[in-house]
């Protein structure tokens, strides 16, 4: 337990940003969400409840802003003084963006939220002391705190309802921070299986729960460093680079005719979720 050890360990935890000496290898999990396909139906959000043991907090607590949905569907429209939202809405599924330089990680006093080697922002429930600094510093506000002890709260998981809980996922107690994990339990299972077979996880072998349920296939998910993956191809075709805070394509005269972008990219948190802009027909 020398100081050297201490520094080494600490450096290892902190150094999984996409930098040259520590590339993501063999995995970097990432997403692409096509807003033109997303219809705002909420199926993904419900899937997340089912997969990740999210508590239903009830009307009163929802009213007090204490909802726990790791995935929320936002909906926007042009409020430019017109009478009707006659150009349609934009729905936006928003969950943890698994930032590469996650602002939530640096501020956690106990290191309960960290970057993993495969590019996730992980949350260690056991370690969390509930200071909520991470949430304070998350620009997307996608962290959800256990304001109450939901497992023992009346009517959250009353008898029998608890049988639905996914044994692969912890049920969180009061005072702990949580958020979308990219369904890490599924990723780990796939990674371990692949490792046992001496290969890496193949494209399509693992899906997040939200992706799996989405009726329009708006969400794609996969290994960004695998050239065979759809996510890799999408990011590449859209010319979105993980480790840029401003994409080259956007600096061109007249902007870009590509739809890929990341939200609040300029804050340099390097999100792992690329969105594809909603499209609207110009002829009507």
């Amino acid at each position, binding site marked *: 337990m020398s100081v050297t050890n201490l520094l080494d360990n600490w450096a290892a935890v902190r150094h999984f940003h996409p930098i040259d000496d520590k590339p993501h290898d063999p995995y970097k999990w990432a997403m692409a969400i096509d807003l033109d396909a997303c219809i705002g139906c909420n199926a993904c959000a419900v899937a997340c409840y089912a997969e990740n043991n999210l508590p239903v907090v009830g009307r009163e607590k929802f009213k007090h802003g*204490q909802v726990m949905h790791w995935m929320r569907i936002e909906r926007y429209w042009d409020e430019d003084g017109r009478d009707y939202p006659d150009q349609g809405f934009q729905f936006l599924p928003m969950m943890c963006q698994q930032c590469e330089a996650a602002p939530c990680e640096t501020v956690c006093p106990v290191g309960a939220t960290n970057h993993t080697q495969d590019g996730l922002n992980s949350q260690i429930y056991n370690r969390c002391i509930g200071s909520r600094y991470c949430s304070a510093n998350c620009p997307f506000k996608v962290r959800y705190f256990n304001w109450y002890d939901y497992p023992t709260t009346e009517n959250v998981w009353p008898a029998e309802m608890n049988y639905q809980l996914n044994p692969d996922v912890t049920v969180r107690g009061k005072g702990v921070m949580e958020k979308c994990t990219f369904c890490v339990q599924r990723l780990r299972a796939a990674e371990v299986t692949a490792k046992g077979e001496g290969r890496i996880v193949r494209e399509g072998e693992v899906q997040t729960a939200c992706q799996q349920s989405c009726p329009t296939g708006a969400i794609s998910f996969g290994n960004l460093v695998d050239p065979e993956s759809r996510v890799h191809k999408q990011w590449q075709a859209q010319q979105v680079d993980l480790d840029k805070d401003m994409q080259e394509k956007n600096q061109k005269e007249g902007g870009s005719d590509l739809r890929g972008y990341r939200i609040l990219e300029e804050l340099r948190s390097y999100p792992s979720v690329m969105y594809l802009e909603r499209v609207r027909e110009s002829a009507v």
Partner: protein
Amino acid sequence: MKDIREDIAWAKINQDVMKSLENPRPLYWVILFFAVLAFGIGIGCEVYQYQMGMGVANLDNPHVWGLYIATFIFWIGMSHSGTLLSAILHLMHADWRKPIYRFAEAMTTFSLMTAGLFVMVHLGRLWQFYYAVPYPNERWVWPNFQSPLLWDAMAIFTYLSSSVLFLFVGMIPDLAIARDNMQSGWRRKLYTLLALGWEGTDRQWRNFRVTYLTIACFLIPLAVSVHSIVASDFGMSQQPGWHVTSFPPYFVAGALYSGCAAIITLFIILRYVFKFEEYMTLPILKKIVRLTFAIAMVWTYLNCVEFASVWYSHDAVSKDLLIQKMTGPYAPFWWAMIFCGSIVPLIFAIKRFQTNIPVLFATSLLLNLGMWLERWMIVSPTFSHGYYPWTWDHDQWPSMIQWGIVFGSFGWFTLLFMVFCKMFPSVSMYEVKEMVYHRSLHLKQNGTVEQGVH
């Protein structure tokens, strides 16, 4: 206007101060009663919150911090003037510090202890607080040294321990006096223990002076750094309204400001309760008031700097937040802060009010209210109106539990402070003697003064 009598007998000084350990005015007990009551309410609220979860505070996602953090900063700020001013004035040989520094230092210590409570009260899993302590452990699990919150914890702990040391060391000669003037009993035993065998020998005095000076030198940068670090909790984050370079000096100024205001409040209370009119004189009060006024203007200036830099920057989000503070649901509180923090202290510029006790008492309370509001206006609006419009939150207000704990903290502080002042000499006897000695050298040469005992 009467200052300390230059011909006062040293024995009289001892007598007067020692009396404060015995029979304060009845108001003392009234204050103590209300302090205990308030503290009890706070405890009740905390127990309930501990049982139920933080939700009862009516915090929410994403409004995850509220009055606890605001009041935490408030108490840290409050701690600043005592020790810091005492140390600075000590180095500057300002003799008017002498009658008041003891209680000011006690104020520092107890406000730090109160601030510390809020760190705990705020934690979602209070029972795991020690994860934030860098204790050696088999698994090499360390806290995250990158987190300003951790710096915070360390800074506060260092500041608290140094302040306690400063307070204690400075008190040693007086403890010896108390020991020597006490009849037998547990108090005498306590003073004997704490006086560390002080005899007043030359060697003891020499060592004492060096130690005291050293701690004072150490404390000044420490105190400045503490509030700078508290400022880093915000300044180092990415959120609009917080990501401001001027936050450390702004916080330090705010801290000195609220500390000075608190000194005025407590000065007036102690002077009356413990019948210290002889020592806590109006000229001293006037000096503090003038100092407070100067700091108020610095704080006002720094506020303007912040607004101006937001206004002229291209940071639309911060600008939006600033406008929101001025016009949104927090506007009444924000304007109250400006009023209390920048307008009310203008009273201090009027000479005739500089020694008017009722006016000063009321004003000092308003200043502190303003400074408490300042902290709240730093913390909450950013949460309610941050980067991400979808998650804005203008409807949730602190619950009675939050208010109860904040209220309780004032009880806790008052309790500690009042008990201290009755247990220990809150006016430094030996230093007042020094002061009188220096001021009355010419009288002394004539040999007309009673020989004091010390």
